[in-house]
């Protein structure tokens, strides 16, 4: 059971309060009608499924209810960072530097 830092509650809390919500930074196209079938497929289905640091979303479901973003290493399951939805996507190299 993971421990997850909720950036809105500013507390590190047990995974049981959270729900996973898939890969992060996959924006819904602003004008869906203008995109191709392949682009729409990418939005709906294509995932990096990376082995290593993964940008992903969680929801503090049983707590503040907020969706937020995280970078978690899918090999160790360790979180490198969690951040608010409107925060910029953190640069991986800096995160890895920091975690060392």
């Amino acid at each position, binding site marked *: *059971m*993971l421990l997850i830092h909720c950036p809105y509650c500013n507390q590190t809390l047990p*995974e*049981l309060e959270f*729900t*996973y919500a*898939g*890969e992060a930074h996959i924006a819904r196209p602003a004008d869906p009608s203008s995109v191709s*079938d*392949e682009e*729409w*497929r*990418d939005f*709906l*289905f*294509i*995932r*990096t*499924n*990376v*082995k290593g640091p*993964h940008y*992903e979303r969680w929801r503090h479901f049983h707590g503040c209810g907020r969706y937020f973003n995280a970078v*978690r290493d*899918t*090999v*160790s*399951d360790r979180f490198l960072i969690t951040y608010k939805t409107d925060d910029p996507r953190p640069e991986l190299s800096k995160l890895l530097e920091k975690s060392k």
Partner: protein
Amino acid sequence: MTHFSALSLIKNALSGQKNWEPQWPDSEPKAEYDVIIVGAGGHGLGAAYYLAKEHGITNVAVIDKGWLGGGNTGRNTTIIRSNYLYDESAKLYDHALDLWDGLSQELNYNVMYSQRGVLMLAHNVHDVQSFQRHVHANRLNGVDNVWLSAEEAKEFCPPLDISPTARYPVVGAALQRRAGTARHDAVAWGYARGAAARGVDIIQNCPVTAIRRGPDGRVTGVETAKGFIGAKKVAVSAAGHTSVVMDTAGVRMPLESYPLQALVSEPIKPIFPCVVMSNSVHAYISQSDKGELVIGSGTDQYTSYSQRGGLPLIEHTVAAICEIFPIFNRMRMLRKWGGIVDVTPDRSAILGKTPVPGLYVNCGWGTGGFKATPGAAHTLAWTVAKDDPHPANAPFTLERFSTGRLIDEAAAAAVAH
């Protein structure tokens, strides 16, 4: 290859077991192959076997980052069934079931395919509707699957609690009698032995780091820990690691890899005569030849390659088993383990060609990969050999995710275990 038989066992017993040969050699890579298969699980080894046996293509290497059969082949709960809802799925899994039947003899290796029957429990009206739909569709597809009342289900599986006051009462069940279990390791070993005997190289502990393509876009080979190995065709059959490997060829996949947990109890004398699955409570159970209750759990909620898995899910799974089989409450868990399953958005596999010429993919089996082993292997070999899919795997394309022609077993309320 030594032919296995009771006679060979006795002969070797009398000679102190000193004369057995290796079942497969541990090969070093050649410079080039006609076909390279990435991933030495049951699917990959089986594909190599069928390439050699049915298509005469023997200049084949199966390459794995670890030991053969060390991935999901050796980590699953060994359930075999084909009572899927959609015609496409039923056809592919039934193709596999036909091959399971007789696989021991075909491979001269006892894979212990045991047609113990798989019982899928219905706990409410919705389950009944959904399983009846399966039963009817299976019947017309020629797939055996019958509907049992709760009492008939109890007769088939005596440990079952069918009291109507249960939190999840059993209101009926779908039974596929041909379904059952097999010995997972033996499947990988049997195919490995059969493939190796036909000239296939099995290269273990050799991670594939990249798929290489030529200027025309066509596959030229793979980069590995042991250097570049040329290949006219490459088939990726790497389960949870498929996304990582395919990404190196520039093909992005609709896959996510989740941890899946399973567990066994301490061994006991025979008590459980079949396989029971309950989608409503997310658990399934059978008893192995050794006597352990083999129990499968659902996937954890987050993607992961850690193979660790959490305690809450296991607690839920065990509670679910004890809810349906209260007599097992005092049994003890012996060990639990995790695998990594690659899951597609419609919970059906992807098996076929890719946008890259000479590159084939077999993945997305989720929790259903083991039962498909001979079918996936056989149709993958066909697809690679002919550069054209076998009718059984033709619908399982990558393109369906653009067109929307999904084979949605998940949406049809059958969790694809």
